[in-house]
């Protein structure tokens, strides 16, 4: 099909730059933009939501998005070094969230939970981080390393298998019931500074995610291990010839991606306090979308993509869809998220910060 399309468009392109396909795509662009703008105009002019409510949606989007961003880092870094999508990464996140639940539950009955919530939260975070790191490294060792020389489609399919394996392993170990995270009293309510009101849980999520992402960025840019990761991502053969142990670098990438997903898992429990063995699927897909949105393979792109996607799906339904009197518009946030993915793939396949990867590695 693609071949036929290229054959048809080539002579036309030689004659002039305007092809039926590009006319169609431009029409689509304009139509989509018109729908978005008109919907936004209708929503805003109807005055259905107050400024404070818009702000709340926005902040909620940022906090959810920063968790997507943390998970997206794992997708994008693994893609960077191995050029395949690790679809089991959502499960790495889920296992971290699950461990966070168990640790939090155990801590909730101790005096520590109320006396020093910050310490408790830190323990939960670290436990989730280590669990997810371990799972990510184990998946790499068992499922991907034996396939190192195989065509890229093979590890991709394997990752889907690994994803199901982990889901049902967790289901078998902890049961299918949805578990609810214990509440953390000091994190109830809102925090206010200079007239700006934000839910405390959201503030914790945003701050923690920012710290992790900042730390990761510095790590990748400044440390020897980080530089070896970038070298392997750019040219694994030359990196190996320079004496970099490529296998070990790949393990590092999985470990760091896992750690970020683990932190996201623990934070997730603060905002959405129910979790089961299937909870990794949707955030995983959203994070993958974020990685593509930001430009797969690009670390800063994954961060931007995650936050953007969080904002789109939080603000989007009320902004665009509500204006058209769609009855259950708030149920359509996933539609907005995936529509964003499709539109990015059509109009800017390289994502926000992406480079043309196909040309970099031949």
């Amino acid at each position, binding site marked *: 099909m693609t071949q036929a399309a290229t054959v048809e468009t080539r002579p036309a392109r030689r004659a002039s730059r305007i092809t039926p396909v590009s006319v169609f795509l431009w029409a689509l662009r304009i139509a989509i933009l018109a729908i978005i703008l008109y919907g936004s105009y209708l929503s805003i002019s109807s005055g259905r939501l107050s400024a404070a409510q818009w702000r709340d949606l926005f902040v909620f989007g940022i906090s959810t998005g920063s968790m997507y961003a943390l998970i997206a880092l794992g997708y994008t870094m693994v893609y960077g070094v191995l050029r395949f999508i690790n679809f089991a990464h959502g499960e790495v996140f889920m296992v971290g969230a699950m461990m966070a639940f168990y640790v939090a539950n155990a801590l909730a009955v101790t005096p520590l939970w109320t006396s020093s919530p910050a310490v408790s939260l830190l323990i939960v975070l670290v436990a989730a981080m280590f669990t997810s790191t371990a799972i990510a490294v184990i998946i790499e060792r068992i499922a991907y390393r034996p396939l190192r020389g195989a065509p890229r489609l093979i590890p991709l399919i394997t990752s889907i298998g690994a994803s199901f394996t982990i889901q049902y392993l967790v289901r078998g170990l902890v049961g299918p019931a949805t578990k609810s995270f214990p509440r953390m009293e000091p994190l109830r309510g809102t925090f206010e500074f200079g007239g700006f009101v934000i839910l405390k849980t959201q503030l914790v999520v945003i701050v923690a995610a920012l710290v992790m992402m900042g730390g990761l960025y510095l790590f990748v840019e400044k440390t020897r291990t980080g530089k070896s990761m*970038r070298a392997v991502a750019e040219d694994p053969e*030359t*990196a190996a010839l320079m004496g970099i*142990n490529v296998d070990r670098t790949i393990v590092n990438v999985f470990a760091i991606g896992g750690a970020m997903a683990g932190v996201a898992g623990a934070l997730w429990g603060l905002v959405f306090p129910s979790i089961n063995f299937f909870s990794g699927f949707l955030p995983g897909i959203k994070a993958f979308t974020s990685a593509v949105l930001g430009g797969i393979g690009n670390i800063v792109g994954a961060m931007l993509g995650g936050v953007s996607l969080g904002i789109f799906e939080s603000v989007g339904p009320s902004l665009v869809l509500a204006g058209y009197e769609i009855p259950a518009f708030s149920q359509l946030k996933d539609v907005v998220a995936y529509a964003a993915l499709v539109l990015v793939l059509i109009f800017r396949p390289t994502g926000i910060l992406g480079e043309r990867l196909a040309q970099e590695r031949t």
Partner: protein
Amino acid sequence: MTTNGAPPPVLSLKGVNTHYGAAHILKDVDIDIHAGEMVCLLGGNASGKTTTLKTMLGYLRPSSGTVYMDGENVNGWSTAQRVGHGLTMVPENRRLFKRMTVKENLEIGAYLRQSDDLDADYERVFEMFPRVKERLTQKAGTLSGGEQQMVAMGRALMAQPKVLLMDEPSMGLAPVLVAQNFEIIEQINKAGVTVFVVEQNANMALSIADRGYVLQTGKIVLDDTSQALLANPQMRAAYLGDV
């Protein structure tokens, strides 16, 4: 390996066969490189030159035969171990990490020397290539071909090589730059680094090398001093452009 007290070659291949998948690339290759020498390996396209280098570095494993470093069998060593023991390669077409800065490229060259003090090494590179110092914070991909060659050489020198493996240093460079590059290679060799140059440009390589090997479809067909090779009629017809 050692006989009558003479030091063993710093690097040698003995009866090496290397396969690339089903393809038999190197066939019973014997190469000896002694300390301080400059040796070249000549051959046309697809004769197995790069495979020879990758086998030396352990990036490819021989299906039979042995790689020795200082007389020690290193078949079981990883590439990193061999690089750590002073075997360093400047790959064909330079292969810099283009999205990384020049400084970072040099750092990757010194990747296995994490505990060493690198200041003197940087100074040595900057002295040899003042341009590299000017471009230090620039992304390597933004440099000209000649500058990239300098960075590639600098990156290799940062590893403090005992044996420098050069894969087609004349590839993709303007003639002026090729001559300049070979001067630098000579200079590095005079400073005590053993050099093994793989080249298609036989005239250029033989003009600076002590000895040469000629590789033809994976077999060493000639092995002599540079003068003898330059005078060899068979050689002149096949590689030196005589008609």
